């Protein structure tokens, strides 16, 4: 796991930790079942408050990225996690709703949205 | 038991760097009576010399933030006070024993003809009482007012002694009456009682102290 914190980004520290762990789970850098450092280890290593790491981990847990097993530690749930899937599904729906809203505001036909979606899908998979 | 002995050891650690001074005092206590050719004065002289070191532990603590140290250690203040009393009493007894045992031998060895040879052990016991009185008055003074300001407390017993002499002269007491009054068998328990009272007062002072 790799975490780099900036004191001057204006983004709260817990948010930075959360986003970076999330990104690493989604990119596959952190795989399912992998053990994360404990709250206190992470706080010590980054020289930050335990409450800050607690908040980051709690958020990640609620969003289904990680799970805490009492007395054992924190583990990456991975992309197969039901919770995570649900979370991602919700994110996708939100994105689509705002795309539809924007297209309506711009007076575009829904077929335009489909076309654009196909286009981006192709672009993404080419990457 | 450790609750009593360890504070004694702590006080010994405080005065440990001054061991040379203590040796010097022993030298004085043994040497001075030789010069005066008076054996009877030796116990009193040694009692007063060692009494002067009673303030050491207090001044060392004052100079070294010792009260913070005291404030941090897991000991009751009363235990620390008892430790200090015992340590001073112990140092005195060692000092006193050295003088009582060695001084007559020195007089013999150096062939000094001494005054007051016959009452030596009685003087010794009186000196012990003398020390108990001085310590009993001064220790609470040190606890209450510190190593410097606390010193005036010793004037109380000194004034009392002078007063006693004055009264004795005024009423023209004969030597038999004086001797009865200066009987160590009566004075010694009284001195010990005084020291215990003094200890209780010091504990009370220390318990109320803020630092």
């Amino acid at each position, binding site marked *: 796991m790799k975490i780099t914190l900036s004191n001057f980004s204006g983004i709260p520290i817990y948010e930075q930790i959360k986003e970076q762990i999330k990104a690493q789970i989604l990119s596959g850098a952190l795989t399912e079942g992998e053990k994360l450092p404990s709250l206190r280890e992470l706080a010590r290593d980054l020289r930050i408050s335990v409450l800050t790491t607690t908040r980051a981990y709690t958020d990640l847990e609620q969003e289904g990225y990680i799970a805490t097993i009492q007395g054992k530690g924190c583990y990456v749930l991975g992309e197969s996690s039901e919770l995570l899937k649900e979370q991602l599904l919700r994110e996708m729906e939100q994105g689509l709703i705002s795309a539809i809203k924007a297209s309506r505001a711009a007076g575009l036909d829904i077929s335009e949205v489909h076309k654009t979606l196909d286009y981006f899908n192709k672009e993404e998979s080419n990457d | 038991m450790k609750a009593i002995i360890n504070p004694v050891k702590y006080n010994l650690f405080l005065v440990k760097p001054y061991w040379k001074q203590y040796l010097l005092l022993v030298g004085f206590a043994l040497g001075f009576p030789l010069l005066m050719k008076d054996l009877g004065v030796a116990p009193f002289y040694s009692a007063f010399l060692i009494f002067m070191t009673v303030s050491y532990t207090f001044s060392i603590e004052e100079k070294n933030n010792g009260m913070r140290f005291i404030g*941090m250690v*897991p000991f009751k203040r009363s235990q620390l006070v008892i430790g200090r009393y015992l340590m001073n009493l112990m140092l005195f007894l060692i000092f006193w024993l050295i003088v009582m045992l060695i001084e007559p031998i020195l007089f013999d060895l150096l062939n000094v003809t001494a005054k007051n040879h016959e009452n030596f052990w009685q003087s010794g016991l009186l000196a012990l009482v003398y020390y108990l009185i001085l310590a009993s008055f001064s220790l609470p003074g040190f606890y209450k007012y510190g190593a410097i300001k606390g010193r005036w407390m010793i004037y109380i017993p000194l004034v009392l002694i002078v007063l006693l002499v004055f009264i004795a002269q005024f009423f023209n007491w004969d030597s038999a009456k004086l001797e009865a009054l200066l009987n160590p068998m009566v004075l010694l328990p009284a001195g010990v009682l005084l020291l215990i009272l003094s200890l209780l007062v010091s504990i009370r002072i220390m318990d109320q102290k803020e630092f």
Partner: protein
Amino acid sequence: MTDAIVLSNVSKSYLDFSLSDISFSLPKGYIMGFIGPNGAGKTTTIKLILNMIKRSGGRINVFGLDNQKDETEIKLHTGVVFDSHYFFEEWTVKEVGQVMALFFSNWQPALFERQVQQHQLPLNKKVSQLSKGMQLKLMLACALSHDARLLILDEPTSGLDPVAREELLELLTNFIQDGERSVLFSTHITSDLERIADFITFIHEGRLIYTGTKDDFVSAFRLVKGGLEDLSPEVKRDLISFRTHSSGFEGLIHAEKIGLYPNLFAEDATIDNIIVYTYKGSKTHESNH
């Protein structure tokens, strides 16, 4: 029992200063920064916890025990570090260990030796010959050689260089790893706390201004900046305090009020900003009376 320290409505009055109605609690396993300007009452509070001075009112519990009734039991498990050492200067490092062993029945000589080695403290040097940083390390070595569950530090970093301060922070974060041990850390060098403190207690002129998580503390305020023309009477009223300079002003505002002034530049306030402007605010407030 989950709190290392609980103060409830603690007060102490002197002729020229009084500490009034101080309440806070430090949950076990965490680090609390204890802040406030010099003379705010930080050392007085610490001395009250240690029962070096007697409280005039309120209640103090350490490890769930009464700090007066169970004083010795508490101190057996508490390590204390002051801004300057409390040893007899003529003692050597080794003798300091011997004296500590007299008082702490849970003293671990091997642990002390290891720490002394780790901090490169010369065993046979006198305390007076050690540098200020070394003396601090000696106090820490003592505090950590008797199985302390609570560390109380009173201005330990004043007079320490940045390297030594960083080492201290590392030591503290290691200390709380098991989640059972806690730290109360009084300081006016707040950059030390900016990162590692979990909780903040802020007192000023003997009164409690804030106690709670550091994150809430810092996010309760915003630092605002703008030109002099932005400093309208409304802005002035809502600022806790501010300072002006030739090209503008800078001030502290409660975070919930920042929405009223979208044209002002706002950024995160540091703990220092908060202390300074709160202090200044209380002064102007006084002079207005």
